[in-house]
């Protein structure tokens, strides 16, 4: 054990617990809903265990349920996962400097970089802390506790759904609720409201054109095309103005 000069009154686990507790509770209840949804769709404890353990991404794991019941769509599923979880690319991008210094926890930290963990790490770390071993341990425990809450909630929810007559019709709405809340937060925080609105409009058009299961990829592609197009026009206009 490395002895630091300052007395450590809180162990890394305790620090991680206090930081992560709200997220843990949220993740736990969300995954109870997930376990119940799995049970409603006819999937048992094996799925409730393996999905949060190996995938560990709330949004795609909900969508995965639809794909499990609707076979032969592996390509769509893969592409959908890449796109829906594309935001994780930006998590790694933001935390690159921080995580590249981890020696023993690096693979797990990269694996477990979900929305909540990312938010907790970026909102609490300071530059001086990042290099200390103690902070690395704290963030590791943080990520681990978050995932533990997910697995626990999922298993418990699934057991409730399969072993008892406890059924909660409509529990899948929890995923919709999460996205709506995320949308509200995004909308409020962004200076430019246009991407949200463009996304919504293109989403609706894509839904009408391609139907439910296939709408996401064309929609995201459409948004990318529109945004790059807009930006190209902006750059051209800027160039014209700077030459006059």
């Amino acid at each position, binding site marked *: 054990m490395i002895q630091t000069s300052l007395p450590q009154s809180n162990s890394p686990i305790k620090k991680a617990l206090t930081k992560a507790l709200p997220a843990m*509770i*949220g993740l736990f*209840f*969300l995954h109870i809903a997930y376990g119940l949804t799995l049970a409603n769709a006819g999937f048992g404890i094996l799925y409730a265990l393996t999905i949060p353990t190996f*995938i*560990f991404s709330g949004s*795609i*794991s909900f969508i*995965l349920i639809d794909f*499990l019941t609707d076979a*032969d769509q*592996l390509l769509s*599923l*893969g592409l959908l*996962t*890449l796109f*829906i*979880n*594309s*935001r*994780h*690319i*930006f*998590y790694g*991008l933001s935390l*690159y400097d921080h995580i*590249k210094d981890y020696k023993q926890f690096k693979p797990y930290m*990269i*694996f477990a*970089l979900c929305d909540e963990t990312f938010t907790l790490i970026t909102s609490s770390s300071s530059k001086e802390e990042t290099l200390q071993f103690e902070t690395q341990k704290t963030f590791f425990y943080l990520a681990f506790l978050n995932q533990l809450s997910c697995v626990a909630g999922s298993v418990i929810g699934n057991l409730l759904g399969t072993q008892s007559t406890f059924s*909660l019709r*409509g529990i899948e*709405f*929890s*995923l*919709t*609720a999460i*996205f*709506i*809340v995320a*949308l*509200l937060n*995004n909308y409020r925080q962004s200076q*430019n409201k246009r*991407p*949200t609105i463009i*996304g*919504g409009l*293109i*989403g*609706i058009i894509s*839904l009408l054109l391609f139907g439910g299961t296939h*709408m*996401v990829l064309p*929609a*995201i592609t459409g*948004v*990318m095309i529109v*945004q*790059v197009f807009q930006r190209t026009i902006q750059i051209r206009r800027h160039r014209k103005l700077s030459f006059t």
Partner: protein
Amino acid sequence: MYAFYAITLTALCTFFTRSFPFLLLSRLNKVPSIVTFLGQVLPPAITAIFVVFCFRDSFDYFHSSGLSGYYKEIAAICGILLVHKIKNNDVLSVFTGTAIYVILSN
């Protein structure tokens, strides 16, 4: 068996999205500006697309009962908007919306 492939594929894709920057940035020196631009612009748009995606199945009601068939969704959304505006707590808003929808569904 298909389930095994589906779960493995999803796990690999998810892990790829998380490790992608670490693979890429160790080779590049700077991030192209288009990537930064998309990084700011795509997330809100994608979230909006997901919200539409979540409602993809509920449009069947429209043909049978018109707008009144949506009372559950509308009530839940109103609940979320209200609670989020007042308390600004993510977990509470999600819980309220889900609770309203579940209560109305049972």
